[in-house]
């Protein structure tokens, strides 16, 4: 452990930058910056501006300035709390499912490692929507739902249209996003550390807790954020597998933009959501990093 912590701060002194390399840097960074500005900053700015505007005559947006949209953004918070609950549960379930899979692929799969990786990627070649619709058949009255209902003798039993179905769809859809970051950290991990730990008398559990877990923590964090953030905006899975009975903040936004066509109110709600996410993710990262530092200190 001490070795790895020492390795981090060693940073070679920077060579003096020439004008040419500065120009090169600018050129290389340009496409990414443009992408960032056009596809992220600009739309975000539009949303923020819109959130202070008025609803147009036929819906949509009319220029103006009002704070009313923010007043109503805090009404009816149930969709938000449902989203939060589902995202947390979904992230934890993904984490629990992804960890063994990633561990298996990284350490036990041997020659078939790339095969498993390919198998994880293959579903992405099919539309997400089609894959979600496929679950309708699997879980439906002619599928698993009906089968379980018949077995327990309850014709009213169903899986579709319940939070469980939505959770299942969520874990199915987002699992790869969790597996890959964990897999990468596990793959890079120095196996000899585990051996050393065992040689020094640590059991399986304490080896996992003191060696493996701290090393793969960045992967777990990346994976959790990759799953949690899009999950907070999820609206397709609850609409299809949840039969619209699970109403999330994403569904509320869709409703406001596409059906009520009250864009300013929808925009205000979106801004509030973005801010909450931003703050919670910053807090999460800060907390996680702080945790790591204290652990390192205690080891030293």
């Amino acid at each position: 452990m001490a070795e790895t912590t020492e390795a981090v701060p060693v940073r070679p002194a920077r060579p003096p930058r020439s004008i040419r390399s500065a120009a090169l840097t600018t050129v290389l960074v340009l496409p990414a910056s443009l992408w960032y500005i056009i596809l992220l900053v600009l739309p975000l700015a539009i949303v923020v501006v819109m959130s202070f505007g008025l609803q147009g005559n036929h819906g949509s947006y009319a220029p103006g300035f009002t704070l009313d949209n923010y007043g109503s953004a805090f009404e009816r918070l149930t969709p938000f709390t449902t989203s939060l609950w589902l995202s947390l549960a979904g992230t934890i379930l993904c984490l629990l499912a992804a960890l063994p899979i990633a561990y298996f692929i990284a350490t036990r799969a041997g020659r078939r490692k790339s095969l498993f990786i390919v198998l994880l990627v293959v579903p992405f070649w099919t539309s997400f929507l089609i894959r979600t619709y496929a679950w309708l058949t699997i879980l439906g009255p002619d599928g698993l739902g009906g089968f379980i209902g018949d077995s327990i003798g309850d014709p009213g039993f169903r899986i579709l249209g319940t939070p469980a179905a939505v959770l299942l769809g969520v874990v199915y859809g987002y699992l790869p996003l969790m597996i890959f970051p964990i897999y990468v950290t596990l793959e890079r991990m120095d196996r000899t550390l585990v051996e050393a730990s065992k040689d020094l008398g640590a059991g399986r559990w304490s080896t996992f807790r003191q060696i493996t877990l701290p090393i793969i923590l960045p992967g777990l964090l990346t994976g959790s954020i990759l799953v949690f953030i899009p999950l907070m905006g999820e609206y397709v899975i609850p609409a299809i597998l949840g039969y619209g009975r699970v109403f999330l903040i994403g569904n509320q936004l869709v409703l406001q933009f596409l059906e009520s066509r009250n864009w300013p109110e929808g925009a205000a709600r979106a801004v509030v959501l973005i801010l909450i996410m931003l703050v919670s993710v910053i807090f999460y990262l800060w907390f996680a990093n702080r945790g790591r530092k204290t652990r390192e200190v205690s080891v030293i």
Partner: protein
Amino acid sequence: MTDQDLDQVIRRMAQTPLSRRGFMYAGGLSAAAAFLAACSSGGSSSPSAAATTSAAPTSAASEAPTASAAPSVAAVVVEKELFMYNWGDYVDPDNMKAFQQEFGVDKFTYDTFASNDEMMAKFQGGATGQWDISAPTANFVPAMRDQGFIQKLDLPHIPNAALIDDTFKKQWWDPTDEWQLPKDWGTTGITVRTKFVKEEVKTWKAFFEVAPKYTGRIVIVDSPDDVFVAPLKALGYSLNSVDPTELGQARELLLALAPHVLALDSDQYNTKIETGEAVLGLTWTGGILELRDKPATADVEYLIPDDGTVFWMDTWVVLADAPHPNAANAFLNFILEPHHQALETMTNQYASCSSAAKEFIDPKVTSDPALYVPADVQAKLEGQKDNSGSKLRASIYEEFKSKIGQA
């Protein structure tokens, strides 16, 4: 990873539209859904089955001398492409193929929307010049006209417009009949599986009364205008009401109903009725009427409630900045030909606005009171206004939607 994630989000954004009037999964799934359906004729979905049964009248009709209009339309150069923005599966695939063949249109793109509001939101977001033709419900036409989303029809090149019945002309949404052509019309009513529902549900009032007995077995189309019909009519008000007291009462009925609802679903409501997952529904006729012909679902009944319901009409409009105006005109003229109208009616299960089509339609269909509503029942129907400006309706609907299935 992030790329995949982004890709997924983009894909989802592009493909969310679920069809209101469609009966099959693919309808909402792909941008060129109807094209796919046309390619996979004989596939698993119901529209192709409907198309095959109705093939006979088409061929019979095309042998007969076709409408006099053809030459004048052919005189202009029809573009090789046509871009349509429509409800899912809302044009008969055989009609699409026949149109492509007749006019040499190589590429027929069929994009879908799930609700009028979604379509409107797209145009308000600046998506003009992308499509030639769309099919909004009539009460949305004035707003589209006022915002410059549609253009005046080139009626000299659509001579078959003369075949539209007078009943559908000079309506409030288009007093001069120069912005839209009636596509078809229908009602929103009550669907019952009589095998499971023993009570008589002949009114919206009864619908709300029996609902608590069928918790988790009620399906409702996800369309604000249609959902408000039920409580407002049950209370004896106009379905276009924006009166706060009346809407307040309607809200209470809706919120009492919400916990018992299985799903808000404009796309798969018929499937849910078919499997028996839902035994009671607030639905359109599309995808429902054909269930009555299947032995397993012969107990399906669609009825127009005695306390009245909505009469809605969908229209064809040519969009402003349409890239292929000639192809658009050719299509509109083509689709209004009686035998093509007949095929549309039999496939979509909505009544044609042109009685000239009647002789080409299976008599079983034209004598169906659910589709060709008898005059005394027609008196109970009320037209739709444009209520999309009512914030109260919007917020009640949102509240209703968020309470679905919540005990």
